[in-house]
C-alpha cells in the first residue's frame, strides 16, 4: 500500500441550509495509486466536484467536511489547519479547473503566474524559476515559450490556455492532480489533445490523476479505474474495463445503455426514467430506488450498502442481478 497516493475513507461533506443539512458527499471511499488515473463520473449535482474540492481543501463555506478521512501519501490532510493545507495545495496536489478562459488572472503575464507558484513551493531562485517556467510551457506544447511567457492570458486560445493551466498545476511537481472537467469548456477537436497531454505528463512524472468528468468516452480512453457517483454516494467502483463492459449497479447499467457508442450502431439510446433527486428530497432507502428497474422492498427501506475502498464493486443489494 506504500504507493497509494490518495486515500479517501468514508468522506462526508455537509452543507447546513434552511431546508436542513444537505450531504452532497456521503460516506465516500476511494483510492488512487501512484501514476494511476481514477475517473469520477456522475450527473451534474452527483457530488463529483464537491469531492474534488474537499480533497484540495477548497470547499466554499458553509460546505464542510463533517466526517471521514483524507490521506495523501500516508499523511492525513483533512485535519490540517489553514496554513499547512495551503502549503499542500499546489505543492502536493495540483488542480485543473473546467474553464481555462477564467482560470488565469487576466492582468498578469502567464510567466509571472508560473514563477510565483514555483517560488512559493520550491526552493529556487527567480532566474531558475523563469528557466523552469519556459521549460514547463514548452512541455505543454506552447510554441515559442521563451517569448510567450510575457504574454497575457487573453493572447491565447482556449486550448492553449488550458495547456498553461496544466503547466501551472504541474509546475511544483505534485503527486496528485485533481482535474475537474478539464475539457468540458473546450472544442471537441481540442479535448482529445488536452486529455492526451495531461495523461502523458502525469505518466512521465508518476503523478496520479483524479479525473472528474461526465464524459464516459473520456473515461473509457483515459482512466485506469472508475468511480460512478449518484446523489453524493458511490454507486460503483472498479477497474474501468469491468465497470464499462460488465456494469453491476443498475445505475451504471442504465448509464452505459444511454451512452452513444459506435458499436451499437444506429439503435435508439435507452434512458433512465426520471431524474436524479435533489439533495433536499432524497428518498428513504437507496437513493436510486425510484428509478431502479430491479428495486425491491429492501431497497425502499434500507440505505444501499456503503462501498469501502478496494472492496466490492457496486453499492447495491442486488448487484449484477439485472444483467447488462
Amino acid at each position, binding site marked *: 500500500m506504500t504507493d497509494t497516493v490518495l486515500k479517501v475513507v468514508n468522506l462526508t461533506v455537509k452543507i447546513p441550509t434552511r431546508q436542513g443539512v444537505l450531504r452532497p458527499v456521503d460516506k465516500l471511499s476511494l483510492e488512487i495509486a501512484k501514476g494511476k488515473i481514477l475517473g469520477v463520473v456522475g450527473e451534474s449535482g452527483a457530488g463529483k466536484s464537491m469531492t474534488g474540492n474537499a480533497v484540495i481543501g477548497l470547499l466554499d463555506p458553509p460546505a464542510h467536511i463533517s466526517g471521514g478521512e483524507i490521506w495523501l501519501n500516508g499523511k492525513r490532510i483533512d485535519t490540517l489547519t489553514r496554513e499547512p493545507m495551503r502549503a*499542500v*495545495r499546489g505543492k502536493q496536489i495540483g488542480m485543473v479547473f473546467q474553464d481555462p478562459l477564467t*482560470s488565469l488572472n*487576466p492582468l498578469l503575464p502567464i510567466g509571472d503566474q508560473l514563477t510565483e507558484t514555483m517560488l512559493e513551493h520550491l526552493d529556487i531562485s527567480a532566474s531558475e524559476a523563469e528557466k523552469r517556467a519556459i521549460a514547463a510551457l514548452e512541455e505543454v506544447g506552447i510554441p515559442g515559450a521563451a517569448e510567450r511567457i510575457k504574454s497575457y492570458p487573453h493572447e491565447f486560445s482556449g486550448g492553449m490556455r488550458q495547456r498553461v493551466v496544466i503547466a*501551472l498545476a504541474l509546475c511544483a511537481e505534485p503527486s496528485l492532480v485533481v482535474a475537474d472537467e478539464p475539457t468540458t469548456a473546450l472544442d471537441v477537436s481540442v479535448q482529445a489533445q488536452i486529455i492526451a497531454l495531461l495523461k502523458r505528463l502525469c505518466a512521465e512524472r508518476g503523478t496520479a490523476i483524479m479525473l472528474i468528468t461526465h464524459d464516459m468516452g473520456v473515461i473509457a480512453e483515459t482512466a485506469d479505474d472508475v468511480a460512478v457517483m449518484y446523489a453524493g454516494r458511490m454507486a460503483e467502483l472498479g477497474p474501468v474495463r469491468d465497470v464499462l463492459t460488465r456494469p453491476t449497479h443498475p445505475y451504471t447499467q442504465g448509464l452505459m445503455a444511454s451512452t452513444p457508442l459506435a458499436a451499437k450502431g444506429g439503435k435508439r439510446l435507452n434512458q433512465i426514467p426520471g431524474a436524479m433527486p435533489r439533495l433536499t428530497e432524497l428518498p428513504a432507502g437507496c437513493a436510486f430506488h425510484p428509478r431502479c428497474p430491479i428495486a425491491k422492498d429492501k431497497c425502499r427501506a434500507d440505505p444501499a450498502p456503503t462501498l469501502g475502498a478496494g472492496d466490492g464493486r457496486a453499492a447495491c443489494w442486488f448487484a449484477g442481478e439485472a444483467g447488462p
Partner: protein
Amino acid sequence: MLAFAIRRAFQSLIVLLVVGLVAFSMFNFVGDPIDSMLGQERTGADIERLRTQLGLDQPFPVQYYRFLESAVQGNFGISYRLGRPVSKIIAERLPATLELAMVSAVLAIVFGVALGVFTAIRRNGWAANTVMTLSLIGVSLPTFLIGILLIYLFAVELGWLPSFGRGDVVDLGWWRTGFLTQSGLKALVLPAITLGLYQMTLIMRLVRSEMLEVLRQDYIRFARARGLRDRSVYFRHALKNTLVPVITVTGMQLGSIIAFAIITETVFQWPGVGLLFINAIRFVDIPVMAAYLMLISVMFVIINFIVDMLYFAIDPRLRVDRTGSAQK
C-alpha cells in the same frame, strides 16, 4: 495607444471650448459689465466710450475669440471687486486649495482602499461590520455638517486644533505652503478630514464591492488551488483586478474634491480659490467666476485624461492594436 491619446486630447479640447463658451456667456447674460464698472453717475458718452474700449461693440464670435485668446495666455481680465488681475489673485489662492485637496485625496485613497480591502476580506467580522456601519455616516452626512461637528469637538470642546484659517505659511516665492510650519499642519487636519471623508467612504465601499466580486472569480480560486499565500491572493491577484472601476471613480472624485472644496473652505474660512469663488458670486465678480470655471474644468479634463491613460497601464487587454481586424 498613441492614437487613443490623441483622440482623447482632442475630445478634451472640445470640452474646454464648450466650458469656455459658458464662462464667456456669463459676461453677457449675468448683468451688464458696464453697469458694474461704472457707478451711478454716468453719462451716455461714458457708456459708449467704455463699450468701445472693452470691445463690447464687436460681434459675439469676435468677442469670444478674443476671450479665448487671452484665456490661453492666462489673462482673465481684472476683478470687478478687487481691481487686480484675476490670474494673479487665483495664483495666490491656488496653493491653499491644492494643498488641501492633495492631503484630502491622499487620505481618501489610502484609507479608502485599505478599509475597502479589509472589509471585503473580513466580510463577516465584527470590525468590518462596524466600519461599514460607520461609513454610512460618511456617505450620508453633508460635508458642512461634518465640518461643523469636527470644529465643535476638536476646536471648541477639546481645543486641540484651530477652527479656521491656514495657520502660518512659508513663502517659497511662487507657492505659499502650510506644510512647513506646525500651525500650518495643524490647521490642515480638520478641513482635510472634512473634505476627504465622503470620498474615502465612497472609495471604501466601491473597493469592497469590487473585491467581493473579484474574490468569487475562478482565477482567485485557481490562485488558492496553487497554494499561494493570502497576501498574494488578495493584493497581487484580487486588488489589481478591482482597480479599473476604482480608478474611474477615484479620478472623478479627485476632480470633485477640488471643485467642492468650496463648502469646506467656507466652513473653515480656508483662503483658497473656493472661498474666492463664493465671494465672487456674492459680488457678481464675473471675471473671477469665469476664470474659476475654466480652472476647474481644466483640472477635470486633465484628471480624466490621466485616468484613461492609467487604464492602459493596468489592463493589458486594452493595449490591443485597434487598427487590427479583430477589434470590437
